[in-house]
């Protein structure tokens, strides 16, 4: 069930969108909107799209797992679950019941940097959506009870079992993060958190968290679809106007960090085939080299004609798959390359080819056609994201994303322009600058087969 999932992938997906060829340049991509801020600091963005009689409300609270403290990891996401459990005027269970009875869907997600909530449904459900969202923004406190925390703690622990512990390679990410970041760094733990920390969360933690972060002045709401901006404004005043502003919020701004040496580690798992993960520190989202790093990841592993896929999976047939991506968060980023060995092959073989291909890009750069191909792919995916107003990754979500990350909701064209400017030389430069630094190399191997792991000496650079 795809519901109340955490989506770290979302930012990566959003950040992948890019590129616009000359022929389309004339019809610049625009998502027209109006913006206003209530006296309690709640910022509202309204976008009209009358193509289908539906409306979406997407609320971003500017808090994520990066705001947690050691010993309470997974807390932002646990709180997200509690936001659906009722508020002062909305008894437990009614949030979902009322929305479904109105033909509306809803969901939420938590990442390192933010937590969001949306409702999608027919236009006549808008007052109901705003009523429900305002009640949980302004009146949740009396309904935060130890029983609800215990129940959702159980649900979240099962989410962790389902999505991580019972998945092959599912514990790789947390093993990478705690080696990539220093102890205590806000990005050193996964959004889902640890079982022990989830068990330790108390009702007092929950109430403090709500008072600190779930305030009108720490949120941005997007209302989009078949709506009239004046009517939206009056509804927003009606439902949110009486909510009192909270204390000013200061986010931890985790520092960018670097590794002093390569870190090799091995994890034994219930898997048939060994897989190697490489992680390098890179740059935060929208930093000057972010776009070029995204293009680099596609040169390496997007599509069958990408360099690593072609060599490792297609020609040499030593790997079953290879993936590369730039995971750019709000304060820092990392570049990842991972690949799974075929039966009879070990991870040092894979590492040798990965390193060879990275060196080749760093020495001679990609071809102009490779960069153009990636640009065209990105343009197409960008157009695809213009088709939908709601849900994760729809126009409303993207307006909130751009607003939070770059301060301009309609940053679509500007985002495309970043990719338009990426040259083969840029890609070559970022390969040299970021992928020839120290890295974390995590090998996940079948239980009892540590000899299949990548080693510092075996994966010669």
């Amino acid at each position, binding site marked *: 069930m795809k519901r109340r999932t955490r989506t770290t992938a979302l930012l990566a997906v959003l950040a992948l969108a890019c590129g616009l060829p000359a022929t389309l340049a004339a019809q610049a991509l625009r998502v027209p909107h109006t913006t*206003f801020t209530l006296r309690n600091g709640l910022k509202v963005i309204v976008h009209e799209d009358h193509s*289908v009689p539906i409306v979406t409300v997407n609320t971003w609270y500017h808090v994520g797992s990066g705001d947690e403290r050691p010993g309470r990891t997974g807390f932002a996401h646990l709180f997200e679950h509690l936001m659906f459990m009722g508020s002062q005027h909305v008894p437990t269970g009614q949030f979902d019941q009322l929305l*479904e009875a109105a*033909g509306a869907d809803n969901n939420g997600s938590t990442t390192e940097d933010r937590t969001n909530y949306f409702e999608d449904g027919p*236009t006549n459900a808008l007052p109901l959506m705003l009523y429900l969202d305002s009640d949980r923004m302004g009146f949740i406190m009396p309904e935060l009870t130890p029983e609800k925390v215990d129940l959702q703690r159980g649900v979240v622990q099962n989410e962790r079992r389902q999505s991580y512990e019972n998945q*092959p390679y599912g514990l790789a990410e947390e093993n990478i993060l705690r080696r990539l970041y220093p102890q205590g760094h806000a990005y050193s733990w996964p959004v889902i958190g640890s079982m022990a920390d989830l068990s330790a969360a108390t009702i007092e933690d929950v109430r403090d968290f709500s008072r600190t972060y779930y305030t009108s002045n720490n949120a941005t709401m997007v209302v989009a679809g078949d709506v009239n901006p004046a009517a939206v404004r009056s509804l927003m005043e009606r439902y949110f106007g009486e909510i009192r502003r909270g204390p000013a919020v200061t986010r931890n701004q985790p520092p960018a960090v670097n590794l002093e040496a390569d870190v090799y580690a091995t994890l034994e798992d*219930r898997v*048939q085939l060994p897989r190697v993960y490489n992680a390098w520190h890179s740059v935060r989202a929208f930093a000057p080299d972010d776009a070029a790093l995204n293009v680099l990841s596609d040169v390496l592993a997007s599509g069958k004609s990408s360099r690593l896929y072609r060599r490792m999976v297609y020609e040499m047939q030593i790997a079953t798959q290879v993936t590369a991506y730039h995971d750019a968060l709000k304060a820092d980023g990392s570049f990842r390359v991972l690949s799974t060995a075929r039966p009879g092959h070990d991870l040092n073989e894979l590492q040798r080819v990965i390193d060879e291909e990275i060196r080749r890009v760093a020495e001679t750069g990609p071809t102009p056609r490779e960069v153009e191909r990636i640009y065209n792919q990105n343009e197409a995916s960008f157009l695809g994201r213009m088709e939908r107003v709601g849900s994760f990754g729809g126009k409303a979500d993207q307006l909130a994303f751009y607003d939070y990350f770059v301060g301009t909701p309609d940053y679509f064209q500007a985002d495309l322009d970043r990719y338009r400017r990426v040259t083969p030389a840029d890609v070559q430069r970022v390969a040299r600058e970021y992928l020839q630094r120290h890295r974390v190399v995590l090998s996940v191997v079948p239980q009892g087969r540590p000899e299949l792991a990548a080693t510092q000496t075996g994966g010669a650079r």
Partner: protein
Amino acid sequence: MNRRVFALASLATVVSAAGLSAQGLDRTRPPALGPAPALRLPSVQTATLPNRLRLAVIEMHEVPVVDISIVIDAGAVADPADLPGLATFTANMLDEGAGRRSALEISEEADFLGASLGTTAGYDVASVFLHVPKRQLRPALDLMADVVLRPTFADSEIARQRELRRTAILQQRDQPVAMANTSFPAIIFGDQHPYGRPLGGNEASTAMLSRDQVSQLYQTYYRPEHARVLVVGDVTLAEAERLVSERFGAWENGPSVVARSRAAEPAARTVYLVDKPGAAQSVIRIGNVGVARSTEDYFPLQVLNTILGGSFTSRLNQNLRETHGYTYGANSQFVMRQSAGPFQAGSSVQSSKTDSALIEFMRELRRIRDEEVPQAELDKAKAYIALGLPGNFETTQGAAAQFRELLTYGLPLEYYDSYVQRINAVTAADVQRVARRYIDIDHLAIVVVGDRSQIEAGVRALNEGPISVRDMWGQEVR
């Protein structure tokens, strides 16, 4: 620009704050819903080419993209009994070399055009998909035509894909959900029915895949009279008809027959355990052979399933997740195909709660048969389905999925015009009738993939039926 808008907004804020907000608002009850918006469905236009290839076009001009699906009656139902996986393998091979291009060149060209080109097969049909910016439609459609009409099936590519498939089958053992999804249909349909065989084949059938078999399946089933083309997006009917005729007008017909098999007779309710040592959760699938897409009970079944396990507030999810916290989610579905597909309820539950979760599953499956659903619950489910319908048509790919279903199952293209009305006509008595008819409580297969050493004693004590230990293919372990 924003500054001016902001100034206006501030002014309005003052006005409406004085008039509407604060003390004026009664929060004790939710706002009444106004009238729901009228349903506006995109209209479908059709054409048939001289070679009997059928074309349906839905114009959507908001975004300059076009989505094309070609649906062909070449699904896994046609696989020989000893060669499961042939249909999906054949579909997979279409873009591994076609026309003058190699596998890598096809991929590179599609990427270069900004196109997504994909091939797949299910039990009933094989499909080729193209999604592309309008300005690259022509060259992308050329590529698609090569893939559909001129696949090369080179031996070297067959061998390459066969090896990839072999490792994918090996890796299924890592995934308890994949193990459940393979063993459950094998158990309820039996291996004499195509729906009981794995779509992606097994080790033995994969080893036998060859160019001859792939070519033979292709020659038999990939024919225009067994194909439908669906075009959705920024094109007109005339334009689409011309583009499709130019490329698919010379596609020739041949003879073909699709054989049908029967599902195995259901056993009395039995619990099947598939061992997955060390599993953190048990993956549960409970069900029986359900109904075909052509069923006259489609609408009551949609309502039934929404209430039982098809929405967040459904009984299974509320019970297992929101009341007990045994799981991250529980659901149910009637998978409808040309022939009766599976009905299945399922979840991943923490291992220590496997028996408790099964008690709740059985309680809900019995309750929805034994008791008429309350009116409010019925109304909520009907509204959720009916009012949610317009959102399914928002994107080109969403609309394509809706109409592809009609084309796949030979349903009239006006089907959605009466959809809401037919959902609204469903009564509580209808729901109970179809629950009793299609949830075969005495012959349910209860499949649990989990750590047998942790769960077997508890499951046995439930006395819901004899215990049978199976492997991931659904075969008895001795």
